């Protein structure tokens, strides 16, 4: 193995700048003559905007401009869009209400963007924003998904009952029949709580208009700068794409929350022209992030599982009400539909599945992707109900799962997906052994002696990632394709630049992508640089989310490298006066079969540019190739996670004492980075189960968890070290055989933790986040009974 090639534990190339404080995040950038924006936000959950009086604010020191929806309309700047069309069961399109970048006549959640104040300093902008007098007509509001279709509070005119769509998947009649014939039915009602993503870097943007070239530049905290440019150009109508440059420099975590195109970034880049081309910078205060970043989850679900007498699953019926928030965010509609319900088969052979999803408006921040985006919600449903069924039937939960595992591939589920490969039994075996499952009863007994309740919980998750064949997603309503692009530029000295449409915001692409190149071209990893995040440098690309950058982004690079190799072989053949068919390329050296002729990769690169030794009518000079890769299928990472908790009976405090994760990600490019992704995912999954809870006050519609004073982020002391194992069934749908690892932990961990808690205290279900208070309350009936 090349020591910086595929499979090597290469230290990250990007780290040097981060550990020395030389990272370049959006808020670190300052442009000449820069001004600062501060947004006037709605203090109400739902209200009409009667008037906005900014006369006093305009006279305040340093104020450069104050803009409202009126100016936005004047410039014909379009509203924010949702990029995935979902149709209801009855064939009607989803009911999308208007989402202006600055409110026109109504505000629909606390924090909704009403006006922007631009001033010479941050403090001046903030002070003047406080002086903008907005007159509101307060309306009835609703923040609860479960109440959305019966409340009097109507969020959008377009949706009379607040229902965005009533969507279904699967065969209703066949599933009903499976339930009629079932020997046993397990029912479970579940709430997947709303959370706030909380990437540590708050969102930020700098918009700038160049009056000389009549072009715009936007620096922004985005996971997908090209998509941002496309949307701002095509839907907001700001400028044609060639007159708009979007740069997403170092981005401090995304987890889905930096996929959407947000009002603030569009406002900054638009308003820059309004103030004569001076750059406008906006950086969210954390309290603004809490209020206005797209939130995650927020599902209310009723699930039923039909079983035969042997505990074999016959059918699954699910109804989910999914909150969309006050507006449809960029990908809001696809998350509780095609990223959720198509995963409801889990790792199991379930012949009949029928799921209905009602997406509803509530007077809350919009909901969009959060690590896993739909798939964690599906895993939560299936892994909670499977565990519950096993308990009801008194079958060991591992054995129950094994009995129902898919074992033959490819496997067509009743909900679109066709699983290509896997070995679920092997991951379960490894997990059971690593978690020392057989000796759990001893650990439970030992814990009991200390006054602790110990429980164990399983999660055998599957996910579909590597979004995905473009024609398939197109037929399901996607507004764009889901391919990825790459360009490989070999320089005359043999160093290589990779221009990728993927975007790294913590994933380590600068290292893993370079490993692929090092492996393929046999060159030192330090002679490879990865260029991403700048629409002026990089060809159109789709960005990073859904664990797609390996399976799709790297495959695009791999395809471009194929072309590089082919071209270089022709050049080498010409220079070495051999037939291209006789040229072989291995470990960075071109050789001619049956001779001792050889050329190093760098020499061939130089020859390609010097172009003296081949006929340029037959072979073009230069060595630069591009590729677009459209995947032929999703990829299907899967695994088994086992969580052990100890609960302090006196306080209800849950401690995760053991956590084992065994995952099948196919081939692995860099084990160190993959392990890091799993660790981080697990922490977020455990967070959802135990800590992360977004709470809106039903009475006032205010966000009660609006800062770290009230919103619990998992800290180091809340988590254990994790035990990780890997199995490998290479993915057949891409040449690298890789699946995806970014979201696995976040998908797997949540049900594992809740299954462990419910096991420990002997309840069917417990609300998330299972904070000490929640667990303590859940234990009270048993304590009372015991007394």
């Amino acid at each position, binding site marked *: 193995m090349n020591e910086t090639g595929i499979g090597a534990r290469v230290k990250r190339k990007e780290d040097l700048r981060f550990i020395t404080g030389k990272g370049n995040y959006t808020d670190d950038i300052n442009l000449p003559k820069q001004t600062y924006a501060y947004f006037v936000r709605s203090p109400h959950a739902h209200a009409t905007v009667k008037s906005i009086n900014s006369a006093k604010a305009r006279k305040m020191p340093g104020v450069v401009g104050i803009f409202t929806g009126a100016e936005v309309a004047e410039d014909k700047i379009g509203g924010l869009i949702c990029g995935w069309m979902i149709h209801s069961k009855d064939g009607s399109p989803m009911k999308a209400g208007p989402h202006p970048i600055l409110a026109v006549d109504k505000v629909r959640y606390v924090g909704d963007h009403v006006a922007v104040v631009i001033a010479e300093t941050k*403090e001046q902008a903030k002070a003047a924003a406080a002086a903008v007098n907005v007159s509101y007509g307060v309306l009835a509001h609703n923040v609860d998904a479960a109440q959305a279709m019966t409340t009097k509070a109507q969020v959008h005119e377009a949706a009379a009952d607040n229902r965005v769509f009533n969507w279904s998947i699967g065969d209703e009649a066949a599933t009903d029949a499976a339930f009629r014939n079932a020997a046993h039915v397990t029912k479970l009602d579940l709430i997947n709580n709303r959370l706030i993503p909380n990437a540590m870097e708050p969102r930020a943007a700098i918009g700038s208009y160049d009056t000389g070239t009549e072009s715009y530049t936007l620096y922004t905290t985005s996971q997908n700068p090209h998509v941002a440019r496309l949307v701002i150009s095509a839907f907001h109508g700001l400028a044609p794409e060639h007159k708009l440059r979007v740069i997403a420099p170092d981005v401090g975590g995304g987890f889905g929350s930096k996929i959407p195109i947000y009002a603030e970034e569009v406002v900054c880049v638009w308003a820059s022209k309004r103030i004569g081309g001076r750059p406008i910078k906006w950086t969210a205060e954390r309290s603004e992030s809490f209020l206005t970043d797209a939130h995650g989850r927020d599902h209310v679900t009723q699930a039923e599982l039909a079983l035969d007498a042997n505990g074999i699953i016959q059918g699954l019926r699910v109804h989910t009400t999914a909150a969309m928030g006050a507006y449809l965010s960029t990908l809001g509609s696809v998350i509780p539909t095609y990223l959720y319900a198509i995963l409801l088969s889990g790792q199991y052979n379930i012949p009949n599945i029928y799921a209905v999803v009602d997406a509803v408006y509530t007077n809350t921040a919009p909901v969009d992707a959060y690590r896993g985006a739909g798939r964690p919600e599906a895993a939560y449903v299936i892994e909670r109900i499977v565990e519950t069924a096993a308990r009801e039937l008194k079958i060991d939960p591992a054995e129950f799962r094994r009995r129902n595992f898919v074992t033959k591939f490819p496997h067509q589920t009743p909900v679109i997906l066709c699983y290509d490969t896997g070995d679920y039994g092997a991951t379960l075996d490894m997990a059971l052994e690593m978690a020392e499952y057989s000796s759990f009863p001893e650990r439970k007994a030992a814990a009991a002696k200390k006054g602790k309740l110990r429980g164990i919980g399983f999660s055998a998750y599957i996910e579909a990632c590597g979004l995905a064949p473009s024609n398939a997603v197109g037929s399901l309503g996607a507004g764009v394709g889901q391919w990825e692009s790459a360009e490989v530029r070999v320089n005359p000295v043999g160093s290589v630049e990779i221009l990728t449409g993927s975007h790294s915001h913590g994933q380590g692409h600068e290292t893993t992508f370079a490993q692929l190149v090092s492996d393929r071209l046999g060159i030192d990893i330090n002679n490879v640089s990865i260029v991403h995040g700048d629409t002026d440098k990089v060809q159109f690309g789709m960005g990073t989310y859904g664990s797609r950058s390996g399976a799709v982004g790297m495959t695009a690079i791999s395809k471009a490298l194929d072309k590089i190799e082919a071209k270089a072989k022709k050049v080498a053949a010409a220079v070495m006066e051999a037939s291209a068919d006789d040229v072989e390329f291995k470990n960075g050296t071109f050789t001619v079969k049956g001779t001792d002729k050889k050329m190093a990769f760098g020499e061939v690169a130089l020859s390609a540019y010097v172009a003296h030794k081949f006929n340029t009518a037959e072979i073009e000079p230069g060595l630069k190739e591009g590729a677009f890769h459209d995947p032929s299928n999703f990829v299907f990472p899967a695994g088994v996670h086992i969580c052990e908790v100890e609960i302090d009976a006196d306080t209800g405090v849950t401690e995760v004492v053991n956590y084992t994760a065994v995952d099948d990600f196919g081939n692995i490019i860099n084990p160190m980075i993959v392990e890091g992704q799993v660790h981080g995912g697990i922490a977020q999954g455990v967070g959802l189960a135990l800590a992360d809870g977004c709470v809106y006050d039903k009475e006032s519609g205010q966000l009660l*968890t609006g800062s770290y004073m009230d919103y619990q982020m998992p800290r180091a002391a809340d988590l254990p070290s994790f035990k990780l194992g890997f199995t490998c069934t290479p993915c057949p749908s891409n040449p690298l055989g890789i699946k995806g690892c970014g979201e696995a932990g976040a998908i797997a961990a949540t049900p594992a933790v809740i299954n462990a808690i419910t096991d420990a205290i002997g309840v069917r279900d417990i609300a998330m986040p299972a904070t000490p208070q929640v667990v303590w309350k859940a234990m009270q009936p048993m304590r009372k009974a015991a007394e």
Partner: protein
Amino acid sequence: MENFNYVRPAKTGDAVKAMKKAKDGKYMSGGMTLLPALKQGLASPTDVIDLSGLKNSGAKVTAKSVTIAAGTTHAEVAGDKGVKKAIPGLSTLAGGIGDPHVRHKGTIGGSIANNDPAADYPAAALALGATIHTSDRKLSADKFFTGMFSTALKGSEIVTDVEFPIPKKSGYAKFPNPASLYAMVGVFVAQSSDGSVKVVVTGAGPGVFRVPEMEAALSKSFSAKALDGIAVKAKGLNSDIHASAEYRAHLITVMAKRAVDAAK
């Protein structure tokens, strides 16, 4: 945050003068509570009078008492061997406030003077029967703490020292708010040399309060078991998304027992 005039006097007298001169002045010690409040716009003083320039830090331990200068940081209190030996509960308490960075700046004087209902020090002060020394006078802790965020401090008065009588045993147990790490319920237990016991609760109510039933039980038998079946009524306790009044009431008994177990 609104702008303000900043001064950092070197002498207590100058600080008092600056406060008297200010239209709407605020004293700042470590700033761990004041600065976040200013950032949130909860206060907009015209003048901030920084007391860190007084450089009054350190603990004096005698046979009968521990006197801690108001400007002593939580880290300094927690790290002081004399304090740890004399009043272990106080040392534990100081070492559990906020996080390491907060403990490097936050001071005992600031904590006492602010009297946040979720602050830790007021519990120790009341349980140990501390005397609060100010620029003008000496006050007993039970006269000093007057309610949520309020104390007996007048206008320009400054806390200068906190004097704690050394108990026979002391212990502190805190159940932190899982988000903020402030005390959701903190219980300080102190047994004096005559065997009498004080049990003081912080974080659970609008201000620190004593629990007479627990004190009586522990005065008879200083053991966690003595607290079995004794619970504070939930009525009147704080209730929020993290802990209902009932849960807080339950935790008071649990934490009181743990404080007794930890008492040295």
